[in-house]
């Protein structure tokens, strides 16, 4: 029996098992399961169980697909991902750690009016944060005016002293942003994190779309879904914009094959038709950066770097970095190479700075923020801290500098011991923690072992800042696959969904 045949057999068994568990042949029977609209917002159904208008057409098609077919679609999607090697967590010679990010085949749909507001809000925010970065590394007006506490910025480990007095090419700091949002039970979007450093996941947005297109070819023709496939072309145009040369040489700089996002680095290089380089491939001479090729040295002008600031240059930052390129920071300062994103952006996506973003927007743009911030209690401030310690069982506590859902306490779901542990942590190092009210993440119907059932999601759209700011009409929707779970991170059992932004 061939490899494929074997898998098909496994699929048949699985499909039959799912069928046994389902009362009817069709999915529609499962629609109410897992939904309690009073607790959270569902993207497909209203709280009285009616279909939201932008899901109507898809719902009508979905109704006609038997569960068996649905499971088959899901199975093929998984197979395609594995064949393409769309994996994360890649470790050498150990296939056990090489996982695919589960792609749920029920899409998340966003109506046009909702998107337009998101788009305007994200542009506004990106524009303001970029001005903020330019300011804190140069004139520091916002600190002098007391809008943001000076010690919060200048004392941050992400405030890079070598960047002081520096203006990156074209004055752009955050070229690629992947903002995390959620929709609360009030039906409104809230920004969770700005992710101004090296946001990943965009390859999933692109590849998932290709897979889902194959799964629902007819729906795609009728529905009017805005395309995302030109992202690599836009990314390349943005990167080229950073150089004054007419034909700049662009590269993607990766930490290498052991990085969990290596697949994405390689994918983006392939899609843009540029070199994927490692630190060892590059060498700096006379403050210029060169690639070592079989024909000798070739200068490189723009790097989309997927290496953290600290590892970029062992001569400027961490001396023990084996991934970086000695001397590259000097070349950057001399204007001989552009780096996207610019080193130093991390200081603006600290979870404590996050609390000040509405003020930052008002300060630079004189506008009210279009998108909501989650109310944030800064444990560094006494009044806030007291509130957090008293109400910890209602709050989500986060470390200011941790990513990926680590160093986090979800108050309502945690035990008494965990509450006590975090109270101690906060008291011993208050500046390291912030707290926010528990938000209820919206749900989207998802294909699960028990049929179609609601699962919590977040939303990560991608924003490019080149000649102008552009929000890509699509996103990575991350979904918490475990029933009731609010943790959507891929490292902790999250999956993804294709995200459809409608033309109208």
């Amino acid at each position: 029996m061939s490899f494929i045949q074997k898998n098909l057999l496994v699929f048949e068994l699985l499909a039959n098992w799912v069928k046994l568990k389902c009362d009817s042949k069709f999915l529609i029977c499962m629609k109410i399961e897992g939904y309690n609209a009073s607790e959270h917002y569902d993207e497909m159904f209203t709280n009285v169980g009616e279909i939201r208008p932008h899901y109507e057409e898809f719902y009508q098609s979905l109704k006609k697909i038997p569960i068996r077919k649905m499971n088959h679609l899901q199975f093929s999607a998984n197979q395609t991902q594995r064949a393409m090697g769309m994996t994360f967590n890649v470790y050498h010679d150990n296939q056990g750690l090489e996982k695919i990010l589960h792609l749920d085949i029920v899409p998340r749909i966003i109506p046009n009016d909702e998107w337009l507001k998101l788009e305007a809000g994200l542009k506004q925010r990106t524009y303001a944060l970029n001005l903020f970065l330019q300011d804190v590394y140069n004139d520091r007006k916002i600190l002098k005016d007391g809008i943001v506490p000076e010690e919060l910025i200048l004392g941050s480990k992400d405030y890079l002293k070598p960047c002081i007095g520096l203006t990156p090419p074209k004055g752009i700091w955050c070229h690629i942003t992947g903002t995390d949002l959620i929709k609360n039970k009030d039906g409104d979007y809230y920004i969770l994190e700005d992710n101004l450093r090296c946001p990943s996941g965009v390859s999933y947005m692109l590849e998932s779309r290709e897979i889902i297109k194959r799964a629902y070819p007819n729906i795609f023709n009728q529905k009017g879904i805005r395309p995302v496939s030109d992202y690599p072309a836009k990314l390349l145009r943005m990167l080229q914009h950073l150089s004054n040369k007419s034909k700049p040489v662009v590269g993607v700089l990766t930490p290498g094959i052991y990085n969990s996002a290596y697949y994405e680095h390689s994918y983006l290089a392939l899609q843009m038709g540029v070199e994927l380089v490692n630190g060892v491939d590059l060498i700096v001479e006379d403050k210029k950066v060169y690639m070592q090729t079989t024909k000798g040295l070739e200068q490189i002008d723009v790097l989309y770097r997927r290496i953290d600031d600290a590892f970029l240059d062992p001569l400027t930052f961490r001396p023990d970095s084996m991934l970086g390129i000695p001397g590259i920071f000097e070349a950057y300062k001399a204007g001989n190479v552009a780096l996207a994103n610019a080193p130093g952006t991390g200081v603006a996506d600290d979870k404590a700075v996050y609390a000040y973003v509405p003020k930052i927007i008002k300060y630079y743009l004189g506008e009210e923020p279009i998108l909501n911030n989650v109310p944030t209690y800064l444990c560094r401030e006494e009044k806030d801290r007291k509130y957090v310690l008293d109400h910890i069982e209602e709050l989500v506590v986060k470390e200011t500098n941790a990513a990926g859902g680590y160093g986090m306490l979800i108050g309502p779901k945690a035990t008494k011991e965990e509450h006590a542990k975090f109270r101690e942590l906060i008291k011993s190092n208050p500046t390291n923690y912030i707290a926010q009210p528990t938000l209820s993440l919206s749900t989207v119907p998802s294909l699960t072992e028990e049929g179609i059932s609601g699962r919590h999601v977040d939303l990560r759209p991608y924003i490019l800042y080149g000649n102008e700011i552009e929000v890509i009409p699509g996103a990575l929707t991350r979904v918490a696959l475990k029933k009731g779970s609010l943790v959507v991170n891929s490292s902790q059992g999250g999956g993804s969904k294709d995200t459809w932004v409608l033309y109208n």
Partner: protein
Amino acid sequence: MLSRVASHIYWLGRYLERAENYARFIDVNFNLMQDLPVDLKEQWQPLVAATGDWELFQTLYSDYGKNQILYFLAFDSENPNSMLSSIMKSRENARIIRENLSKETWEKVNELYYMMLEGKDKKIWKKADPRYFFERIKNQILLIYGIADNSVARVEGWYFRQLGQFLERADKTSRILDVKYHILLPSGQDVGTPLDFLHWMALLKSVTGFNTYRRVYGTIDPSNVVEFLVLNKYFPRSIYYCLKEAEYCLHHISGNLDGGFKNPAEKSVGELRSRLEFAEVSDIIGFGLHEYLDNLQIKLNNLSDLIDSTYFRLRDNFISQTNDQ
């Protein structure tokens, strides 16, 4: 092309060819064993000896039986040259440079790897006749070559992969020939007997060369077989042919199309190729076949080192920077 990328492409070519040839080794031995008289013990050790990993085998195992040896050659990750190890490494190389490969090539290499894992799961080495499995692996690799042949532009990357492939093949053809040296006949008097001829035939079949050989030489004769596999100008698995191809690749990489040499690797491959071009089979037999092949393998290793220092070696960017300042 980035030096590092060129190196990964070269090794991708080498590891794929290595895995394919191991599948051929195993096949040739199965054919040989089937022709042995019942009172003669099966001989699997010569196979390991020919791959050059006999010492490693002895440190790992004390059982010299068929199953153990098959496991060692095909599925053992402790053996850096086993088919599984080679396929894993070719996949790692392919993954690193995936942006330089066509989607189909990558997907087939990926699939090959999962086929090997599946074989390990199923304990193929314990099957009475596992040849169908090795045939499938061989065909999957040939498919990858076929895809490349019809979709890869004939620019630098293509030549680096071909270079790796043909150097590996030259080495492996010499080793397949050497299997015959290691296989013991029941006694010295059996040289030239039907049994001896059967061995030579099995060997030719393993390199898909039996019919071509028949057409060129007619009868089976050891010195003709040696001539065919070492010196033949047209058979794509003969050592001479492989060197000629490798030389062609090197010249296309450097753009040196007027003969002579531009770098030490070109000089070395040119010398080696011309030595075979003007050799006669009697020279080889006179020198001693085994010794001749051994010598050749050493020269091929030297050539690979020269390719590495000419094209793949990276300057340490830290040293260069600190010297500058």
